[in-house]
């Protein structure tokens, strides 16, 4: 019938421009940042080794932020990722001190994440506690468990070399963590965009009532989201331990806000406020490049913060403003 989707008359050229800018705003900013830096610091920033270095720095944040993306996609929140990461690292290291083999220790660490994710999910769905309170609570409990195990003292391995290889080792000149990041990103993307589960997650996040009425088991989907998030958080914690060969009670704390920043920044990449894996990765990389730039330029501490804050806002702002102009 006569609902013609394309607006009857052709759009002005400018509108097209705005649309592009709205879609690629965040990416354009990242690009600009890179170009400027390459000009300012040709022989330190724009070097292959530094690129690898930045990617390597992004790896861990990327893994945990991707996990968070899953909970955000299902319309939930997870404030426990930081504590989960810390706990996983501490458990893995403690086990290795008790001469448990590395693979087993890692497995145990990750298992912790599964358990915490499950707890989060059940408290949210079965007890019906708001996700923020629930995950904050479970997170606090996790910290408690952490103290019960390590008594708050950093756990450092006696001879960490084999363990350290996991993050120091390289293949074709690129450190393993980068491969891990990329591999997980591909998997996560496929899961979200090419499977029924992924679509269900997005549906639940988009409109839980509609999802449930169309036969999706909303609660189950939510729990799965939390479990994936917890698992990746734990994995991050373990990987973090492979960097220093030791684990500390609060090692993972910094990842909390960083992951949220990346995920929300990413929700403005290419899409309009939807969380998606690619966006999250871009968010993480942007932050990493920003930090790298700061360090290379040797900015004053206060510049560092101003810079990071502005990058966040501009990166998202450009897109949204442009989109609005395009609509107008």
């Amino acid at each position, binding site marked *: 019938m006569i609902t013609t989707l394309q607006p009857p008359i052709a759009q002005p050229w400018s509108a097209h421009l705005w649309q592009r800018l709205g879609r690629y705003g965040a990416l354009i900013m990242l690009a600009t940042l890179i170009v400027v830096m390459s000009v300012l610091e040709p022989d330190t920033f724009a*070097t292959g080794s530094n690129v690898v*270095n930045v990617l390597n720095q992004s790896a861990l944040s990327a893994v945990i932020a991707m996990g968070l993306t899953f909970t955000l996609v299902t319309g939930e929140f997870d404030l426990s990722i930081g504590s989960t990461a810390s706990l996983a690292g501490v458990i893995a290291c403690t086990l290795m001190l008790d001469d448990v083999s590395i693979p087993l220790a890692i497995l145990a660490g990750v298992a912790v994440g599964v358990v915490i994710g499950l707890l989060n999910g059940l408290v949210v769905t079965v007890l019906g506690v708001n996700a923020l309170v629930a995950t904050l609570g479970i997170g606090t409990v996790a910290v408690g468990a952490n103290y019960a195990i390590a008594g708050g003292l950093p756990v450092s391995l006696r001879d960490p070399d084999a363990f350290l290889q996991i993050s120091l080792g390289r293949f074709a000149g690129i*450190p393993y963590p980068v491969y891990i990041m990329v591999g997980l990103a591909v998997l996560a993307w496929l899961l979200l965009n090419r499977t029924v589960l992924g679509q269900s997650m997005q549906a639940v996040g988009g409109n839980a009532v509609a999802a449930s009425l169309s036969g999706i088991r909303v609660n189950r989907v939510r729990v799965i989201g939390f479990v994936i998030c917890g698992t990746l958080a734990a994995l991050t914690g373990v990987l973090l331990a492979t960097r220093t*060969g030791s684990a500390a009670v609060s090692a993972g704390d910094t990842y909390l806000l960083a992951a949220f920043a990346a995920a929300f920044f990413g929700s403005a990449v290419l899409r309009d406020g939807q969380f998606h894996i690619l966006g999250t990765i871009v968010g993480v990389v942007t932050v990493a490049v920003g*930090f790298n730039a700061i360090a290379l330029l040797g900015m004053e501490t206060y510049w560092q913060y101003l810079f990071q804050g502005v990058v966040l806002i501009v990166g998202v702002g450009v897109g949204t403003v442009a989109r609005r102009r395009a609509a107008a």
Partner: protein
Amino acid sequence: GGSPGKDSDNGSDKGAGKTYSIGIVQFASSDETSETAIKAYVEYAQKQGWEVSKVDPQGSVDKAISAMNDYVQKRVDAIVATVFPSDSLTAGVRAATAAGIPVISFAGGTAAGVPINMDGGRPNAAEGAKLLVKDLGSTGNLLVLGYKSGLPCLGREEQLMDTVKGTGIQVTRNEVPIPGQVEAATRFTQAWLAKHPAGSGPLAVWGCFDDPALGAVSALRQAGRDDVRVYGINGTPAALRAVKAGDLRATAFVDVAAIGLAIAQRTPAIIAAGPDAKPEDVAIPTFLVTTENYDEFVKKYPAAK
């Protein structure tokens, strides 16, 4: 309710001699050094059969002050505060003083109502700084990883700067955040290394405590560089191991356990003297551990590693 804590903590088996009730305000249960000092203190106190309780304000001054007020409510005989600058605990200290309770500070500095403090600042950095300058031969580049909001770090950095001043050493400084000190240190170091490739004169990294130093070590490992010397302070087990392995040039082992014990032993006197006694700063014995003297160190402090 959370009553289970009750018996698990205050080993209130009344031993010989006068028993006291002590309230300890931690800095954060995750802060290794202060925790070690507290541990030593608590062990002694419990041997004496004193009643000890600990509260973890998780790094929040407000909570620390709250905890001090709670202890005043509990009518303890003495309050031990940790790391928080004493002059930022004023509201708590005042309440304690008013109730005639002396406040003992671990590394927070003395102040009115805080008659005794163990100094975790300047003195601990002295030897290390000298060694650093000597190693560099008074030239080359130095990366300083500091933390200005922490009193001990502040003193240590000042000490370092005083020593470095006048030499030809070029200093790059970065502020490391807490938490996240290790990763931040790694990133700062990586960038600094990029600017100072191998062969660009003598290079060194100095951390105002061991975590940043270890972060730097991790960066060196990842970059496969061995031309940079790293210096830390505190002598945490991880750091000591790094010294032994030669990854860390030196760390100043701060014998907080000893000082914790010493102050515990002096507690009765402190209580007797009350909050208005003449303020006193007790320097913490330090031992600069290097690759060379590691074994000697282990002989002296078998417990440490």
